[in-house]
């Protein structure tokens, strides 16, 4: 079976946020999803920098959405998770799961 690359922590969180948005969303939605789920007040610039890195790795693709009045007439850049991105997510999740498998008691004591 083909194995994907391991993701960095922010890449992992951003890709998971995109998956939670049905695999497709723009920077603001990703940022809000992360903030609501993790309580981390992440900057929109960090989200875009991470998404660009993921795009270079072909884990996500992007297209320009329609400008809306809510955005002051500005277009949005919509990102979509690709198959390679899903594979990398799966690989990272499996790695984390196997590394934390017998650590439950140890982590609870922290």
């Amino acid at each position, binding site marked *: 079976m083909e194995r994907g690359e391991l993701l960095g922590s922010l890449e992992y969180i951003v890709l998971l946020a995109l998956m939670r948005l049905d695999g497709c969303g*723009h*920077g*603001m939605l990703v*940022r*809000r999803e992360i903030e609501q789920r993790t309580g981390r007040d992440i*900057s*929109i*610039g*960090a989200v*875009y*920098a991470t998404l*660009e*890195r993921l795009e270079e790795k072909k884990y996500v693709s992007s297209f320009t959405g329609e*400008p*809306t009045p*809510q*955005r*002051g*007439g*500005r*277009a*949005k*850049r919509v990102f979509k998770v690709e198959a390679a991105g899903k594979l990398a997510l799966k690989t990272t999740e499996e790695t984390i799961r196997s590394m934390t498998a017998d650590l439950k008691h140890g982590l609870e004591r922290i």
Partner: protein
Amino acid sequence: MKRYSPPLLLCRFIGSILPVTYNDFLLGDLIEEYAIRLETTSQLAACLWFLSQTCRSLPSMVWSLLRRDWLIRIRTAIVVYLGMAMLKIAAGLVISKAFAPRQTAHVIIGPILFLITAAIGGFAVARIREEATIFLALFVIVSVVTSIALNICPIPVPWWYQFGFLTLGPLMVLMVPAAVRSIKPAAGRPAL
């Protein structure tokens, strides 16, 4: 529904630092979330959030911009920088021929020439490859720092004189394309 008006100064600031392709998405997202936040918080809190997002976002966006296709952007910036230098030298020669080459005249005309060539360079680089503007601004900073370190100025000048070169030079490179953009905004978008 509350009326939303994003902080104009911050929008202009982002618009002057980042090229259109970047600032469009970033500003659009900030304006969209700012409007959402205004529904639940005060305008001051929303403005502070906007300010904090701007300050924290710009370094990562600028870094991301510098990293991407950096070689071709540096090449464009170098070509424009050389053009700027030649223009400044030529204009300096013409002016020193026309007026007596007195040191005081040099101290007054020097900054004006420098700012005009920086503005022309900023405009030219934005026309050729907008993403290279930030590299040109960096080159201007490096050249000013080098000339201060090498003590090129023939007569002693106060610190604020040199500081003016260091701040206004890169600002002219960045602000002129942004100013031109705000005069001719994209279709369907209000000018900032």
